């Protein structure tokens, strides 16, 4: 059962990765190129020797980008299927498609949107190499805290479900999540390493493209996985009609 779901999750993730790669190629790469052009211009102006090119730009923007996004997509799909395997049947009477779509929506918010409001994606030329350790640490702390807060919020909604009704329980849980986010956002240090003269337009478009790539990934996984999981779980659900969920 779990194995079947996992395999489907990996495959749906791979498909999502292919589509996200196409999106990244069209909307992301032009911004990366502009950022690198800025980086080289800066290096020239300060008389620095240009960085040796270990991997050509064509490789980075082609097979390298494809590898990164496809591996990421497959891993996302696989992890998604494991979360689904746990959540399915534990979220009231929500069916496979609804469960999948809900996990994708909450996951996209908790894993991508909320952390990126604090530590947004940065193009090349933005970011000091000496602070990479520190920045990576904060980035992952932010994601872990955000996921923990979302899991807690879902738990809270379930506890309040019968007493307040579905809508009010969800609103209270959503507000609780926002409060946690506001506190964490205030508590963690800000990072701003954007060079003074870096184009605001390129930065904005890069970040929109980055968010768009994630939106493609999570939408395809959320809707696609629900569709393929339906058949897998239907078999099991019908075998045990005695257990019914409200």
């Amino acid at each position, binding site marked *: 059962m779990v194995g079947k779901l996992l395999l489907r999750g990996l495959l749906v993730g791979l498909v999502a990765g292919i589509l996200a790669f196409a999106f990244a190629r069209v909307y992301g790469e032009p911004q990366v190129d502009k950022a690198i052009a800025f980086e080289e211009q800066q290096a020239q102006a300060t008389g620095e020797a240009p960085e040796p090119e270990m991997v050509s730009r064509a490789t980075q923007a082609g097979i390298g980008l494809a590898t990164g996004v496809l591996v990421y997509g497959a891993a996302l799909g696989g992890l998604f299927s494991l979360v689904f395997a746990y959540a399915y049947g534990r979220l009231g009477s929500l069916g496979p498609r609804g469960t999948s779509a809900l996990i994708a929506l909450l996951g996209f918010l908790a894993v991508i949107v909320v952390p990126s409001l604090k530590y947004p994606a940065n193009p090349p030329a933005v970011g000091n190499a000496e602070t*990479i350790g520190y920045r990576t640490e904060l980035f992952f702390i932010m994601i872990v805290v955000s996921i923990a807060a979302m899991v807690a919020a879902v738990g809270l909604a379930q506890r309040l479900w019968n007493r307040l009704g579905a809508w009010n329980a969800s609103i209270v849980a959503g507000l609780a999540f926002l409060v946690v986010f506001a506190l964490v956002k205030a508590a963690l240090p800000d990072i701003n390493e954007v060079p003074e003269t870096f184009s605001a337009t390129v930065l904005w478009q890069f970040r929109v*493209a980055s968010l768009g790539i994630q939106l493609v990934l999570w939408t395809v996984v959320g809707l696609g996985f629900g569709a393929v999981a339906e058949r897998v779980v239907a078999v099991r659900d019908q075998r045990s009609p005695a257990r019914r969920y409200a």
Partner: protein
Amino acid sequence: MSDTTFAPSYGPVAIPVRELLPWAIFAGLMLMLMLYFVGAEEGATSLIRGTAVHEFVHDGRHLLGFPCH
């Protein structure tokens, strides 16, 4: 009463945790490792010497939102 007995409705059935746990641990670890190689290897931490992995997935790493450089 007879309706509920003879017309079973098929609600979602949860997978028991003990069935899920081995998958979650082993597959979960493998999948996290995949994310690590795309997102963080040869950045803040390094398992493989050099910068080949970093340079190869460079664009993806930036565009997927990971801290890079």
